[in-house]
């Protein structure tokens, strides 16, 4: 039971990383990034290509792939998303959705639908004794690293000037602008950062999950539920909900396997009935 809950936390780590990126992007740009799953997939493929074509190991991929894709995100924001933001939100909705399909199909064209081989780094091959039970080292690593990243993002947001501007712009964009802060300057880097987080999750996933063009599309639906549960645009909520949903689905699999697929959405419905803006969302955000 305890082991299963721990196991849920590991699964939740991926939700948290992805939801975190979605939340900052939504908060800052007001864009629901439907291409987020595709960037997660590109992160995993980035790791695979780095190893397969350039001989770069997992550690180098972990450091190199996210910034590279983050850069791609920045270009994307500059070229397209920026132009669509002043229009109806539906335009960006359709744009990112279309982009996800295009990215998926490009990868499919190049590598086919089969999963690509990627093994975990040998340093993380063993198991760790956690006192109550032993656990695969790689999974412990994933959990620790994701938790660290979440904490680091949290610290940046709460303790630095940049973070303050981002938070202010997220919660009260007009007011922040009225106070003379140049919100626009931060929009592009935040978008790039959100994309880099998705890519980071993708690299982490490569050794333990099937690396194929559809891996992001399958996952992202749950991540949207996570963001909604946490409260749209709430960074803290996204992380908490990410880990919570991980644990809930692990326990759901254990006790009611037949229901496990719907459990996350039942949870979402319950949370929304109780708190229409999500666990940590503020209703004002929607006005």
């Amino acid at each position, binding site marked *: 039971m305890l082991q299963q809950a721990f196991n849920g936390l590991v699964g939740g780590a991926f939700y948290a990383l992805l939801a975190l990126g979605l939340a900052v992007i939504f908060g800052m740009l007001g864009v629901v990034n439907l291409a987020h799953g595709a960037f997660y997939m590109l992160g995993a493929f980035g790791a695979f290509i780095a190893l397969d074509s350039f001989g770069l190991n997992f550690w180098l991929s972990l450091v190199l792939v996210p910034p590279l894709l983050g850069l791609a995100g920045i270009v994307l924001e500059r070229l397209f998303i920026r132009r669509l933001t002043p229009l109806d939100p539906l335009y960006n909705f359709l744009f990112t959705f279309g982009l996800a399909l295009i990215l998926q199909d490009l990868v499919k064209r190049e590598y086919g639908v*089969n*999963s690509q081989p990627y093994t975990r780094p040998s340093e993380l091959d063993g198991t760790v004794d956690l006192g109550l039970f032993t656990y695969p080292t790689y999974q412990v690593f994933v959990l620790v690293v994701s938790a660290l990243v979440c904490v680091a993002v949290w610290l940046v947001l709460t303790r630095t000037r940049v973070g303050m501007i981002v938070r202010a712009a997220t919660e009260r964009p007009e007011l922040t602008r009225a106070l003379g802060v140049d919100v626009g300057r931060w929009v592009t880097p935040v978008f790039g950062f959100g994309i880099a987080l998705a890519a980071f999750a993708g690299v982490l996933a490569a050794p333990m*999950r*099937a690396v194929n063009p559809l891996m992001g599309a399958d996952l992202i639906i749950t991540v949207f539920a996570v963001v909604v549960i946490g409260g749209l645009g709430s960074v803290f909520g996204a992380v908490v909900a990410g880990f919570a949903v991980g644990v809930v689905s692990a326990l759901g699999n254990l006790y009611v*396997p037949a229901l496990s697929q719907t459990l996350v959405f039942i949870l979402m419905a319950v949370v929304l009935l109780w708190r229409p803006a999500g666990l940590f969302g503020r209703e004002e955000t929607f006005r």
Partner: protein
Amino acid sequence: MRIVGWTGGLAATALLLAGCAGGPGGGGGKISDGKVVLAVLNDQSGVYADTSGRSSVEAVKMAVADFQAKYGDKAAAKKIEVKAADHQNKPEIANSKAQQLYDRQKADVILDVPTSSAAFAVATIAKNKKKVFIDVGAASTELEGKQCNKYTFHYGYNSYMLAHGTGTEVTKAGAKSWYIVYPDYAFGQDMQKTFTAAVQAAGGSVVKSDPTPFPNDNFSTFLLKAPGLKPKPQVLGTMQAGGDLVNLVKQYNEYKLRGKGVGLAVGLLVLSDIHSLGPDALAGTRYTDMWYWNLDAKSRAWADKFQAKTGKRPTSNMAGNYSAALQYLEAVQRGGTDKSDDVVKQLEGYKFEDAFARNATIRPQDHLLLHDAYLAQVKPAGEVKEPWDYVRVLKTIPAAEAFQAAPDAACKL
């Protein structure tokens, strides 16, 4: 109807034949529209695109070339065309594409059609239009049961073959207690039922069966729980396929379940899956297949030709499509016509051998192809001597045992 560049007499004959096609009797017409059209309808862009897809179209073209080389001027069908369409694994798309293929593209036979629900849709059209349909890609035994009809054939494998091969043989080899995980949709549920029956019939027991979400990328709950079940299962039977299977196997190795005494048996394993996981991830895993490219000299010779054309080794599904196309053409040759009723008559009860099927018979009562199946085991990477040669064949399961012993009573042709 457009007639371009045909001499008058020939054009008149063609018109006459076109008018007769499908009509009762047919008045001695030989080949409808003056040509035989083989159509491959399968998944060309989705999850099964690499197990069959366009490569199966290539395999069918190879069958046509082999047939023409064999008969030359004596071929009953002078002109043979191969068409292809993508059904995206969706029954409604399969339905409309099948109608188009039979009506507008003048297809005489539709081949492949993976995904059982799509196969049922095509079988219904084949029945209504009285056109031949040879299914290679779908697993459901209902194709030769409730859903069977006079014009539909099930060719290659089915869930009975997969479950009884692996379930029976692995249990007999000593793994008496099983933990089965299956994706929660038609194929998974069907496999879970047939597997359980096979394991029990062989003297084993199923400790527990769990449905898993589909698609799913995280199987850790099930894997963690496996060694703790009472009694402890000796083998984990997974009915997952494609990307889900890859996820499950990666995580199975992560939790080192083999080291904890829980072996692995896979319901449906395809050569391309082993290629993506790397043989070490699956080393020792046993499964049943309908064919293997390096089975013997005959299979290998064909696989070499296939590789020269496509750059990769064929999956059993691709070989199955080759054989189905070839046997269809042979039936046309024997009967001297591509009229559906005559082709069906030629196929029913036919006994043959080719690069794919051994000791093969098409059972007249339910149109199921009976042929030898193989229990295979994945080799450790150290024993893989050449690219793609991942598997050792442990045992040939004779045609009579590999498939249902008696036709399903629900099948009325």
